[in-house]
C-alpha cells in the first residue's frame, strides 16, 4: 500500500462528483463518458454540441495537467500494442452493450441508487480484478 494516496484521491473524486452535478444541474445530462463519446459517433440534431464540448473540456483539462502536473501521466503499465487494442475494443463494445462505464454506472448511477448500476459496477469490478489477477500473478505482469 506504499502508493496509497487517500487525500488526493478523495479530493479528486469529489471534483468528479461536482462535475457530474454541474452537468446535471445546468444541462440535465448524465456525466457518463462512454455514453457521451458514443453519442458523438451517431450525431443527432441538438444532441451533439454538448458532447463535443464536454470532450473538449476533458482534453483541455488533460493539457493543463500535462503543462502543470506532468507526473499525472507518468506511470503506465507494460502492455503491447495488441493488448491495448484488445483492451480498447472490449471497453468500447462492453460499455455500449452494458450502457455505461465507471462514470455512468460507478459514479452517477450509484449516486442515484440505481440497481442496474450497482449490478454493472459489481460485474466490471469482478472481471477487472480477475483479469489483473491473471496478468499479474499467472502471466508475470506484462502482456
Amino acid at each position, binding site marked *: 500500500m506504499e502508493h496509497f494516496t487517500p487525500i488526493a484521491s478523495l479530493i479528486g473524486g469529489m471534483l468528479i462528483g461536482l462535475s457530474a452535478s454541474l452537468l*446535471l444541474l*445546468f444541462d440535465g445530462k448524465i456525466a457518463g463518458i462512454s455514453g457521451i463519446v458514443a453519442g458523438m459517433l451517431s450525431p443527432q440534431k441538438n444532441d451533439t454540441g454538448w458532447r463535443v464540448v464536454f470532450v473538449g473540456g476533458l482534453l483541455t483539462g488533460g493539457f493543463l495537467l500535462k503543462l502543470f502536473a506532468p507526473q499525472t501521466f507518468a506511470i503506465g503499465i507494460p502492455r503491447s500494442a495488441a493488448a491495448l487494442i484488445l483492451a*480498447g475494443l472490449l471497453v468500447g463494445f462492453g460499455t455500449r452493450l452494458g450502457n455505461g462505464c465507471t462514470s455512468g454506472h460507478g459514479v452517477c448511477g450509484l449516486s442515484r441508487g440505481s440497481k442496474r448500476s450497482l449490478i454493472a459496477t459489481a460485474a466490471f469490478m469482478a472481471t477487472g480484478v480477475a483479469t489483473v489477477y491473471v496478468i499479474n500473478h499467472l502471466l508475470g505482469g506484462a502482456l
Partner: protein
Amino acid sequence: MNTLIASFVSGLVFALGLGLSGMTQPAKVTAFLDFFGDWDPSLACVMLGAILVHTFLYQLIRRRPSPLFAAAFSLPTRTDIDPRLVAGAALFGIGWGLGGFCPGPAVTSLASGQASVVIFVAAMVAGMYLYRLTEGLWRRQESAPRQVALPPLTAPSPPAWQSPQDF
C-alpha cells in the same frame, strides 16, 4: 450557448479530478484491481469522494422541475436487470483490467500524446462502432417477454423528465 459553457466546465473539472486523484495513471488503476498483490485502495477513495458529493447534490438538484439551461432532465429510468447489462459490464471490466484505462481517463490522457493512449482510444471507438454495427443481434434477444418496470416506490419523478436508453 450557456449549455455548452456548462458542459465544457463540467468536462474540465472532471479531467482535473481524474488527474488529481491519480486515475490517469493506468498503474494506479490496475494496482487497485490487484487485490492479491501490492493493493492500492486509492480508486475506492475516488469513488467514495465522487459518490458522496454527487449523492448529496443529486438530491438537491432533483427537487427542481428542470435543469437551469435545458427543458428537461435526461435520466435513465430502466430498472430491469438483463443479460446485456451484465455481459457488457463484464466485458468492459476485462478491457479495463487489461489496459488500465476506462473511457474518462483514456480520453483525458490523449492530451499526454502517449502512443499507448492513442492506440487504446482508437480501439475503444472502433469497439463502439462494432457494437453499433452488430446492435441488431443483441437487441433481438430482448424480444422475449420482459417484466414491465414498475414505477419506483419513492418520490415520483416530475413529468418533464425524459428517459434516454443510455448514459
